[in-house]
């Protein structure tokens, strides 16, 4: 009995770690798949467009080159409109600036506890779903060419 109660927390911790590792592993795999998809099939792939989570692909200066349907619906952002994702960096979301820049240093960044990150993609006059859409996490990752040089960055927002 006593032995069991001592082992129980350790087992639970192990389970949790495994689950975290699995989650991270899934995320890494997902990112790799996206990277491959973007490189192989071009930006306007149906899969990317219909992916249920908001996603954008951006250049180093922050200009968007691709916006998927989910993000466009959430924010009201016109898919053909020129927009810079660094326009609306707020005090609360300053970490996004670092994450965006780090993408072009070849780094992947997971951010959680974000405050209304989709507001980055809104314009003053836009009537999208606006705030409280529940997206609090984001994964920023690089999209590299065959020679390993990062040419674009992408971000997927997760609830």
């Amino acid at each position, binding site marked *: 009995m006593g032995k069991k109660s001592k082992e129980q927390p350790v087992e639970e911790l192990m389970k949790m770690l495994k689950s975290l590792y699995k989650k991270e592993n899934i995320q890494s795999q997902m990112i790799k798949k996206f990277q491959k998809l973007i490189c192989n099939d071009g930006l306007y792939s149906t899969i990317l467009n219909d992916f249920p989570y908001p996603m954008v692909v951006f250049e180093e200066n922050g200009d968007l080159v691709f916006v998927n349907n989910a993000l466009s619906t959430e924010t009201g952002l016109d898919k053909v409109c020129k927009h*810079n994702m*660094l*326009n*609306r960096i707020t005090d609360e979301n300053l970490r996004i600036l670092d994450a965006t820049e780090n993408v072009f240093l070849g780094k992947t960044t997971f951010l959680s506890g974000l405050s209304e990150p989709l*507001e980055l993609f809104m*314009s003053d*006059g836009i*009537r*999208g779903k606006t*705030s409280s859409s529940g997206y609090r996490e984001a994964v920023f990752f690089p999209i590299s060419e065959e020679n390993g040089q990062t040419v674009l960055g992408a971000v997927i927002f997760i609830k």
Partner: protein
Amino acid sequence: MGYMTVKEVGEQWGVGARAVALYCTEGRIEGAVKKGNIWLIPKGAVKPEDRRRKKDDCQEHEQPPESTGLFQAFHNKELFFDIVKHFPHPMHICASDGTMLFANDAFYQFVKVSQPKEDLSKHNVLRDPGLEGWGIKEFVQRAYQGEVVNAYDVKVPIQEMVNKFGGDNDMLSESLFHNMTAFPIYNESHQLAYIVTVFVISRYYQDREEIIRGKEYIDSHWKEEFDIDQLAEAVHMSRYHYTRLFKQHTGMTPYNYYQEVKFAKFKELLCDNSLSITGVFDECGIDYSGSLAKKLKQKLGMTPSQYRRMKTKE
């Protein structure tokens, strides 16, 4: 013949040195000569007549309304110059040909001059080559035709002015915008005698040059939608670096600063009852049903109409 300086004469006559310098400029002191920038006044020169009206004179004759109260001060040079001297905003007075005759203490502080000059006649406003650059050429031309003219939110080239007036020549890390008013003063023969120009600060910045430029840019473009590209172009820095630098110096990102400016203007215009609520949104360049409008309403903590009613009651 012995000569005295304006300061010595002023002490002897019980008037300010600037008043004596003005008498000299007007040719009211016999034998006064100018050597370089200094007026020399013969010993024993007669003090020009005090043109102030005496109390008894006023009682003897029925005075027209304009010769009483503040208006009278304009006809009473010493009193007028005393008022101007202590006026809290920078002010200068020029002759009708543009020659600068007088500047008040606030003006000297403004151009970082610790020792006021007795002679300003080498400065001529009409011949200032910088007028075009300031964007006030028309303002000056109209003023010297005798009009009362206003110019709003003029960026005054402070460094240029400091250099011109021989002020403390350190590079300044500040930027000033002024509302300027110029008005004429006519002499007894109704001829244009002086032009008074007053500078009232409308915006003031003191910080790193890039931060000043960024704030200036946002304050001048607050009606438009925020655009980091144009801001980065205005300060010649990368979007990443500038956002961090701005946050470091001001405690907020450029976009947060833009929102603060917009919110302040929005509240200011809500107090203007001549505008409808939708008119206030229009004036601020905000879509009434857009995301920014929603945010501003949240920040206000009440509806714009409620805010207006509250302010009207105050």
